[in-house]
């Protein structure tokens, strides 16, 4: 899966550079154009893989939001207040998701540790009893 995504994004990036002359030449694209191509590919990839990640809906929505902002205005400075508010809310939501997943992960790690300790005690307890019974002598 990741190979396919990487291949696509690399192709798109290469095409956006090769389509025009090299940067620095009189007819060449500006640094902004190149960066814009790279950003488009990265956002498209992020939006595509987001549903497979934890908290992915929020990430996907955020990526699409940034793409729409980029399309409708000349950078973030051109975005209207409503769009910025939406992005801000999405970022907050994403942060909350991340926090929730981190807490869940910590809780699972603690459970796993407790399980290992208990399992070890039960094994040692059983082995000790078995050995004590086997070694019973007058």
């Amino acid at each position: 899966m990741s190979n396919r995504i990487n291949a696509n994004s690399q192709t798109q990036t290469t095409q956006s550079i090769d389509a025009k002359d090299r940067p620095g030449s009189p007819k060449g694209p500006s640094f902004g154009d190149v960066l814009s191509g790279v950003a488009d590919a990265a956002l498209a990839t992020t939006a595509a893989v987001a549903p497979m990640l934890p908290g992915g809906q929020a990430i996907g929505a955020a990526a699409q939001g940034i793409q729409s902002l980029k399309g409708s205005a000349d950078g973030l400075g051109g975005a209207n207040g409503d769009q910025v508010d939406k992005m801000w809310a999405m970022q907050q939501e994403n942060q909350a998701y991340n926090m929730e997943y981190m807490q869940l992960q910590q809780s699972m790690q603690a459970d796993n540790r407790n399980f290992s300790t208990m399992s070890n005690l039960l094994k040692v307890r059983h082995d000790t009893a078995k050995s004590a019974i086997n070694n019973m002598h007058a």
Partner: protein
Amino acid sequence: MTNPIEDDLARAQLELKRAYLLLEAGEADLAAESAERAVSIAPDHPIPTIIRGAILCAMGNSRGALGALRAARKRWPSEALAHVHFAEACFFAGRDTRGVSALSDARSCPNSTAHAALIDSMEGFWREAGRIDSQGDTT
């Protein structure tokens, strides 16, 4: 020529093995009965009494386990296993201070090295459960 003491020990050993198999099969009451028979066959050997106490503790009968293991500790004070299982019964019964002290008694027994793994695991488990602090005291 057979030795009656050895014969009794062999019979008691068989009953204890049966008790453990029954316990693992979920037949706790039958396991306790088997351990009880082992004690009555070899009352002068520490292992049947200790194992009976440990089985009672595993069944959730902390009161019965405390009684059996207290008697074992009194009669065989140099037997580390009696102290460790008594400590376990104490923790289950909520008597943490007594449990910590029993673990300490177990460590000072002459045969504590043979049971070091059990003593360490027991202490580690109750520490992780938040019942013993890093200094080895109750929390």
